[in-house]
């Protein structure tokens, strides 16, 4: 059996009708995984950038890249074993938890307090996917009410 590995793939596509469903449809039809997916237009280009976090063995990853390429609106598929990756996370805590402890934790993960209301503390952090997992673990002791993960975004090192 070939080893299953995690891979982050960026896809640059023409910004046109139903392009996103072409991509997600491809993953669904061929039985590939999407772990996270982020999409946003690239300013003043008529293109959008998708970042897809996926899993599969070497053959599957190779097929995913080739199949993405094959879609007519696909301009470019960027894929590296090592990309600079960041994921943003927002988390909501009850107001009775320690604001200063929460703030210290968030700062350790490249973030801070985003909002404080009479009921809740809302924080945000942005860090590497592995560290995001650590943050979520560490934050458990403050009894989070809600967690929103933003999905991975990535950029080539060079």
């Amino acid at each position, binding site marked *: 059996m070939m080893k299953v590995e995690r891979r982050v793939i960026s896809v640059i596509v023409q910004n046109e009708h139903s392009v996103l469903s072409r991509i997600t449809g491809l993953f669904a039809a061929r039985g590939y995984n999407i772990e996270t997916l982020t999409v946003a237009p690239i300013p003043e280009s008529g293109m959008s950038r998708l970042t897809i976090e996926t899993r599969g063995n070497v053959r599957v990853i190779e097929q995913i890249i080739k199949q993405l390429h094959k879609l*007519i609106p*696909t301009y470019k598929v960027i894929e590296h074993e090592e990309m600079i990756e960041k994921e943003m996370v927002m988390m909501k805590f009850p107001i009775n938890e320690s604001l200063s402890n929460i703030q210290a934790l968030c700062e350790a993960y490249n973030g801070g307090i985003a909002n404080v209301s009479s009921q809740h503390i809302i924080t945000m952090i942005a860090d590497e996917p592995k560290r995001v997992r650590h943050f979520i673990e560490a934050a458990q002791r403050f009894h989070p009410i809600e967690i929103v993960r933003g999905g991975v975004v990535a950029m080539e090192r060079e």
Partner: protein
Amino acid sequence: MEMTGAQMVIEAMKLEGVDTVFGYPGGAIMNVYDEIYKQKEFRHILTRHEQAAVHAADGYARATGKVGVAFVTSGPGFTNAVTGLATAYMDSVPIVVVSGQVPISLIGTDAFQEIDATGISRSCTKHNFLVRSAKELPRILKEAFYLAASGRPGPVHVDIPKDVTAETAKFDYPARIDIPTYRPTTKGNLRQIKKAAEVICKAKRPVFYLGGGIVHSNSAELVRELVAETKIPAVETLMARGVLEHDNPLLLGMVGMHGSYQANMAMSEADLMIALGPRFDDRVTGKVSEFGKHAKIIHVDIDPSSIGKLVDVDYPIVGDLKEVLEVMIPKVKECVDPDRYQAWRDILKRYNEIHPLAYEDSDKVIKPQWVIERVGQVLGDKAVISTDVGQHQMWTAQFYPFSFPRQFVTSGGLGTMGFGFPAAVGVKRACPDKISVNFTGDGSILMNIQELVTAVESRLPVINIVLNNHYLGMVRQWQTFFYEKRYAETDLSFQPDFVRLAEACGGIGYRVETKEEFDEALNDAIEKGVVAMIDVIVDREENVLPMVPSGGTLYNMLLEYKD
């Protein structure tokens, strides 16, 4: 020039050189049909089902290499066409299907005859478009034809809302197009081609694995040259039948589940597989881990995603086969010594002597294989042969003496029963000088039997030869082999009177139970040149052999079946 969207559709057909549109009108596409009524540029052939319209366009495209065109309406018109799109998609056939859609303002409201057509066709087309305004229609139609025919060909679907066909805009048809996100690689990597040529010359037991890409790229002549220069034996996939002439001594026959013994053994024992435009389908490879176990593999294909999809490839070459072969042949010629493979050819010859592709003929009952051989003797290269799907399809692939590419029109990838007859109608329209024969079964023919009316009305004579075993034969065969003869819903003993059915639609019918009757019927049908249905009662229990059981290894063939 200003014109309506509907007029643009007609104008685009004219500029693309379309001489035939197969279709069926309906509410959402009426504006286009109104323009068809007024024009004289192309012939519209009214099929009696939208599925048949797309299969006919597909048959037309397979027989000529030109883009086939079908028009259908929205909703059920379109959903009926989906099997046609999927069939063409699996076999990489260039067609353009234009469907009507409800007006833009009604899209998403569950309007009458509304369906999310592009949502459905996305996974069975090369590309599709929902047209948002008449302004963008000329560019989209141009792109549709370009995408269908270029690179790895395939079906393209254009969905046009009714108000877009009524709207007027400037008709600015691009002379050429450039889609920055779509640039298929046609020129093969020179270093890889050189390396492949060296490997071919050094191999001891090489075999050509010829696929449908040769037909699509019109490179059969070059393949014939390469085979002749090297004297390396070759196997053909179902989609490549006719690439080599049937009597070419280097042709080992068809490969795969119902391939010949020598072809499958050649693939299993080769030390080099030269794959020209096949896609390593499971019906060819059998158990993938055992496929070509002793072989290095060269794979030439225009679609990078076909290379290494199922089997690891040692020498991948992405490019148009024609362009690659033009470079490769001189390089191979420089180093090849055809005598080098003599021992290998002798081994394969011996295999063929031990287990030739054959059947046991009978005086008591007509053997289906005999019918196919007989038609081959009578018509040979004068006919273009279509088939439906099942036992008759495999027997045709095994026993018809094909002499040129595009002589064999069959649904390989999707395996669509009901494909043959409408495809043969499209073939006849495309090749009026050829005799269009459809080998079919008593199961398949009923899946598009209404096309009798189309063929008769349109004066497109097709000779349907029903190899009638009163079974859904291929499924019955599997039940015999693998399900202890539990014939679940495969006994088709109750069936229509095919002779009267043909006659009811204005055709001519024959029922045949002896060889003499068959000869008479065939000759009469050829002579009369009308739509014919020859109902041939054949041996009920005949099996397609050899057979590699699904998921089995290629060298483990069932060569005979004993009760």
